[in-house]
């Protein structure tokens, strides 16, 4: 028997609304976004010099967040990525849990699909529970969010609570319009370093 795609038990959030709400509360947090829709979501919420958008490097978003968080323990690091991107770097959850950076939060925007390639089901559509995996790896806090109320409760904790934190926010699979941020990687790197370290870092 072929394992079918399960329907989520409860209503799910709009991805653009969810990411906008998380970024609205960012304060001086530094933001890494995983390739595909999470990068478009962050761009749609408003470009920011403290955003580093990935257009590639699939599976690497959370690890970039770890390296940044280790380098800058004085700053909160928010990683916003997708279920497919995180699944490609699943071992990074173990590495991050072991390093236990207290200033990292990871938001998985989970549409249970590979949205950029034709909306094929990802493993989260078939029952793989990323927040349970993060909890088992040793994350300080890991949960799955299905309602706006749950999201609103998580957001202040994501910026204040001792990490690492991870939340999977279940979002509707409806594709949102592509909103394109700057795409030149070297320029994005220089912009981010100038924002964080001053113009002498470029």
């Amino acid at each position, binding site marked *: 028997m072929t394992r079918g795609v399960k329907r989520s038990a409860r209503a799910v959030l709009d991805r653009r609304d969810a990411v906008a709400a998380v970024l609205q509360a960012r304060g001086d947090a*530094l933001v*890494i976004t995983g390739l595909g829709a999470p990068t478009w979501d962050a761009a749609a919420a408003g470009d920011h010099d403290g955003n*580093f958008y*990935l*257009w*590639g*490097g*699939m*599976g*690497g*978003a959370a*690890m*970039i*967040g*770890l*390296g*940044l*968080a*280790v*380098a*800058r323990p004085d700053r909160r690091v928010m990683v916003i990525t997708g279920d497919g991107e995180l699944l490609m*770097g699943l*071992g*990074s959850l*173990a*590495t991050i849990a*072991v*390093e236990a950076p207290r200033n990292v939060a990871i938001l998985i925007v989970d549409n249970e699909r590979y949205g950029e390639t034709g909306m094929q089901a990802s493993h989260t559509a078939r029952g793989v529970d990323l927040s349970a995996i993060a909890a088992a790896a040793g994350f300080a806090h890991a949960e799955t969010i299905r309602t706006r109320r749950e999201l609103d409760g998580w957001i202040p904790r994501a910026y204040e609570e001792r990490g690492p934190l991870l939340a999977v926010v279940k979002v509707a699979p409806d594709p949102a319009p592509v909103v394109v941020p700057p795409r030149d*990687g*070297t320029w*994005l*790197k220089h912009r*981010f*370093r100038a924002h*964080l*370290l001053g113009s002498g*870092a470029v």
Partner: protein
Amino acid sequence: MAPRRSRATGVAPDWPAEIHRIFVERRIRQVAYVPDAGHKSLITLCHADERCRAISLTTEEEGVALLAGAWLGGERGVLLMQSSGVGNCINMLGLTAECRFPLLMLVTMRGEWGETNPWQVPMGQNTASALEGAGVIVHRVDDAGDVAPTVAAAVELAFQSTRAVAVLLGQRLIGTKRFE
């Protein structure tokens, strides 16, 4: 097979200790690794030194991404691995190339000089070409006396000229693992 002595001096320098000293002197802070026997004492030295932060990975491409993040935050790092791990890094090295991140990799070689595990040979024989194909500058060391100057030069090339650089530490230098 015993590790090689230096051609130049006739004695075997403690090259892992020399590499560790370079890390400290050149402010290489995040030391990410997937273990290899050839890196054993260097990993131990880095774990014991609070000036370094040794970070154990599940797979080598994690380190490529980690060190990109380190650089975004203003820190230098290094990635230690065995040659078989180079294959795991290839797609993530596209991040390094597109963003022109500095990257220092120290790769202990398998699958070459006197190898007794044939499964190591395919990746070991293609390590340098795979790295070069991914845009990484490759230095190679087979003599113990050349390790420190080569690593020191690679540090400058990586962090002052903002390039991805791998130093391959040859199996003849490290000593060949026996399976018999």
